[in-house]
């Protein structure tokens, strides 16, 4: 989108801000207007970049995003505090400046974590050493120490229990579709049975798997 010239753009933002104020709180019209207003604000060439010279670019991007996000929440929650005699972007930029300082305070150096991209994610996740956890689940399913995993079965199919399904899914890595074909039971029925049992068995699972 080509940003419209300054004055028109200001007026357009102001119109949206005032429109949002006029709709009742919690009405879908207010929600949609706020959504449009936020979208326009992020397109603005006048959006400030507080402290941009003080940080390495990659760290700055994340700090800025966190501050931008908190500012969005503040705009939505406090739209009624916007005073139409000032340009919307002046109000937004002052909120953003404060939020940036708050983010820097919250995440000063040692709490800054690295954010993996989609390409890094599998490598990133496998640093956790999942083998221990896999082994724990496998052993638990095998041993069933309190003998509760086979207490129920799908109606008319005493061979299909929580234990059988969990084993097939998590140790043998079958998908619900494959299991559905093999057992001749629809995926919905299998999942419905599985989820209900999972919920009922939660205290038991918590005792052994946490």
């Amino acid at each position, binding site marked *: 989108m080509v940003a419209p010239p300054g004055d028109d753009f200001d007026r357009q933002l102001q119109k949206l801000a005032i429109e949002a104020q*006029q709709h009742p709180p919690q009405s879908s019209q207010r929600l949609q207007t706020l*959504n449009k207003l936020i979208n326009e604000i992020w397109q603005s060439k006048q959006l400030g970049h507080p402290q941009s010279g003080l940080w390495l670019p990659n760290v700055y991007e994340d700090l800025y995003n966190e501050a931008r*996000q908190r500012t969005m929440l503040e705009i939505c929650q406090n739209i009624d505090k916007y005073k139409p005699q000032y340009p919307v972007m002046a109000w937004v930029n002052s909120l953003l400046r404060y939020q940036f300082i708050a983010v820097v305070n919250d995440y000063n150096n040692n709490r800054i974590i690295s954010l993996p991209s*989609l390409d890094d994610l599998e490598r990133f996740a496998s640093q*956790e050493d999942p083998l221990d956890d896999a082994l724990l689940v496998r052993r638990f399913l095998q041993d069933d120490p309190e003998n509760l995993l086979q207490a129920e079965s799908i109606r008319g199919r005493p061979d299909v229990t929580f234990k059988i399904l969990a084993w097939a899914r998590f140790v043998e890595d079958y998908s619900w579709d494959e299991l559905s074909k093999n057992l001749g039971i629809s995926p*919905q029925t299998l999942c419905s049975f599985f989820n209900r049992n*999972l919920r009922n068995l939660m205290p038991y699972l918590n005792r052994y798997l946490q």
Partner: protein
Amino acid sequence: MSKVTENLTFAVPLSFEAHSIAQQCCKHQPSPQKAKQVYLNTLAVYAVDFYLRCQGFDTNWCQSDSRNPVMLKFIDVADLNIKYLGKLECRPVLPDAEVCHIPPDVWENRIGYVAVRLNQSLKEATLLGFTEKPAKEIHLSQLQSLEKFTEFLCQKRQSEPVNLRQWFSGIIEAGWQAIEQLLSIEKVELAYMFRDAVNITLGQQIDLGMELGEQSLALVVMLPPEPDSEVDIRVQVHPMKGQTFLPPGVKLMVMDESGETVLDTESREADNFIQLHFSAELEERFTVAVALGETSVKQDFVI
């Protein structure tokens, strides 16, 4: 590029908070593939949770299955509980994908499914739209728009009855306020003509959309100071601050639990406000509707 024809979307920046929750949730998953899935699911739920909080909804992510470490090991889940409304499922959509996948694990107990596009750097999530009915995969062009999504949620929220009995103990739902904040001073005095000094009186702005142009209306509910086995209730419709008269043709109706209209009135030329007066037994449910032309707004109450 024309923006008019484009669907509304909402982009959420993903930074330290989002990723630290995702990193927490993907710990102790039995395989790297599963950990990746949990990571992406968590970012999708985070984005929807943020959107809903921006829009004033009361979410309860911490009590959702998608934050339960044991649940995450066994099912592919990305749910988000919204107080009083139910569960939404928030499914991640990869950068180049054209469909949204919904696994059978989550086909039950959901009020809807939101598709959330993640970008390659995982620094931004975009809410694309939603569907009420699950399917193994849904083409993104088949999703209902975000506009429909907000309407859908607001309708759900409105369909929750306002609990008037709680007003006696000072528990007031969001959206209801002292009438001094809604009406001009003369109107407040008019409204109070019918009450004792200690009545409970609250109002809510109502939106009849295009029918009214710039003008807004307020629905006012008055209760006696104490509950009795029968409660005396007045409902009124006033023009909001800055306006003297109601437009003619505004209808106010009270319906019983079966939807049958039991009382109604309509504004004429130069009416300051309209009112209905009735009594209800404790536990009784009723609906108040305000209508003008083709548009009407309904609110359920329980006393």
